[in-house]
C-alpha cells in the first residue's frame, strides 16, 4: 500500500465534509472553495472538486445561483440547502466522535 494512496483516501473521505463546512459559513463559487481547500492542503488538483460539487448538488445537499462576474465568465455560487445543513450537522457530530476516537488511539499508541 502506497503512502500517497492512503493519504489520498483519507483526504477524499473528509473532502465532502470540508466543502459543506466551507459553504456553511457563506455561499461561495468554485474558485473560493478551491482556495480554501488548497490552503488546508486538502486537494492537489482542482479537478477533484467538480465531480464532488455535482454529486452533492444532485443529492440536493447543495444548490447554486448564477452571478455575473466583472473579470470573466459568470460564476456559480453554491450554498447549502436545508438538507445539506442537517447532513452537515450529522457529519459534524460524527467527525468530532471520530476525532476524539482517533486522537485517543493514536496517543495511546505513542505513549
Amino acid at each position, binding site marked *: 500500500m502506497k503512502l500517497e494512496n492512503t493519504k489520498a483516501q483519507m483526504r477524499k473521505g473528509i473532502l465532502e465534509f470540508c466543502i459543506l463546512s466551507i459553504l456553511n459559513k457563506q455561499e461561495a463559487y*468554485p474558485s473560493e472553495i478551491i482556495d480554501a481547500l488548497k490552503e488546508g492542503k486538502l486537494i492537489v*488538483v*482542482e*479537478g477533484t472538486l*467538480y*465531480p464532488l460539487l*455535482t*454529486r452533492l448538488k444532485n443529492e440536493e445537499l447543495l444548490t447554486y445561483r448564477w452571478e455575473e462576474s466583472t*473579470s470573466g465568465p459568470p*460564476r456559480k455560487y453554491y450554498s447549502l440547502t436545508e438538507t445539506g445543513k442537517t447532513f452537515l450537522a450529522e457529519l459534524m457530530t460524527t467527525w468530532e466522535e471520530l476525532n476524539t476516537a482517533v486522537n485517543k488511539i493514536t496517543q495511546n499508541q505513542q505513549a
Partner: protein
Amino acid sequence: MKKTVSVHIKGSNFLIEEDAYELLQDYIARLTKALKNEKGSKEIIEDVELRIAELCSEKLRDVRTVVELADIEDILNTLGDPSMYLGEDEAEETVDGQEQSYEKTSSGSTERRLFRDTENAVIAGVCQGIANFFNIDVVIVRAIFVVVLLFAGFGFPLYVILWIVVPKTKSTIDRLRMKGRPITVENLREEVENAADRLKDKGTSFASSLRENDHYKGRFHRIGRIISIIIGIGIICWGLIWLIMFLIFIIGGFEFIPIINQDGMISITDLGTLVLASPGDVSLAWTGTIMGGFGVILFLLLLGSTMLMKIRNKWNKISLIGLFSLGVVGGLICLYVGLKAGADLSIEREGENKELIVASNVLTLIPDVPLMKTPSGLKVKSDGRNGFMRITDTEIKMYGIDIVYKESTDSLFHVYQIVSARGKSNSTAVRRADNIEHNIRLVSDTLYVDTDFHFPKADKIRGQHVELIIEIPAKAKVSTGGRTIQFGNPSDEDDEDYDSNSRRRKYGTFFGDGYYERRRDNW
C-alpha cells in the same frame, strides 16, 4: 509566428494559440471519457470549462490578448489529469507524470478498420489509410509502395486493387473507426474540427502540413521525410531516363531498326502499316504510345516532385490521377491494337510446297553464303548490308531462309521448299504462304537458292517464312562454300554434331538423324 483560434467558453471569447487549443481539446475529450460513467458528467465538464475560462481570463489580466500554450499547460496542471477527477487512483499519477499524459495519443479502445483516407491522400488515400490502420507514418507506407512499384512492378496493380476494395471514409464516424478511436461526441467534434482545419489549410498546405507533422511526429517524421526525398529524387531520375529514351524513340527511333526501302529509312508509321491490322490501328497505336508514354513519364516526374517537395493540394492530386489514367488508357489502346494484330497471327499454315529430286553424288549449293547455326538447322545469314527486310511500293522482301539437312530414305537428293505464313484463319494463312515468292533453280547438279523471298505488301508482315529441307542420300554429300555436308559416315574426323532431334516436324521419316558437316582445313 503561431496561428490562433477564437474560442467561445460560457459567454467569454478567447484567442488561443492553435496548439494550445488542440491541447485543450484533447484534455476535454479525455475528461469526457474519464467521466463517462459519472452521473451529471455533462455538468461537471461545463463547470470545468467555466473554470478554464476563468483561469484564462486571469492569465490575460496583463496586456496580453492571446492565451498561449504555456498558459493552457499551466491551467491543465492546476486542474489535474482527467484520471484524477474521480479520485480513484489519483495517487497513481503524480503532478510530474502529467506532462506525458497530455501528449496527443490516439487511444485505441475501438477496433481499427481499414479505410482509404481521401482527405490526406496523394492519389486515392490507400497509403494514408494503411498508415492509419497500423498507426505508422504514411511516408513509410508510401516509400514501401514506391519501392515495390519500381522493382517489382507490383505496386500499381496492388494500389488499384486496394483503391477498389478498400472503402473510403464517408463519415466522421468512419474516420474515428479508421484511427481506432472510440466514437464519442468529443472525438466526433474533434474530427469535424480537424476536417474544417484541413479545408482551411488547403491553400497554405505546404507550411501547415510541415508544422502539423512536426508537431505530431517529430523525429520519426523527419526520417520519413528523408526517405521520401530520396525516393522522390529516384523517381524523378527514373522518369527523366524514360523521357529521354521515349523522345529518342519518337523522334529518331527508326534508325535503330535495320529496315531499308528504296529511299533509305522506313518510318515507324510505315512499319506499323505492315504489322498492324489496319491504317486506323496505326494512328491508334501512335496515340496510345504517346499517351501511355507521356502519361506514365509525367506521372513519375510529378510523383517524384510531390514526394520531394511534399506538395499536397487538390490540383496535384488531380494531375497525378489524370496522368496515371492517361498512361493506363494509352497502354490499353496499345494492348487493343496489339491484340487485334495478334489475332491475325494466330494460325500458321504452309502453302504449296515444291519438291526437287536430284540423282547425283554431290549436290552443289549456291550461293556460298555464311551459314548460321540455329536450333532448327542452318539458316542463311542475312546480308548485313541489306538489313533483314526491304520494302518497296508493292512488295516486302525479307532476307534469310532456313536450310535443314536430313538423311534421305532413298538414293536420291530430295529438296523441299516449304513456305509458311500466319493469319487469323487457315485460308488467310495459306493464301499468304502461297503469295511468297522464293526461287530455287536446279541446273544439272547445282542448286541455286535465293537467300531472300518476297511477298505483296498488302499481305503485311505475318510470319512469312521459307525453309529448305535437303535430304541427302547415303554416301552422297552437299557441297557449299567449300564445305561438304553428308550423313552416315561416323569415321570422319573432326565432325561437328548438329542435333536436329530437337525439331519435331511432319517429315517423320527423316527424323532422328544428325548430319555431319565436314570442314576443310582452310575453313
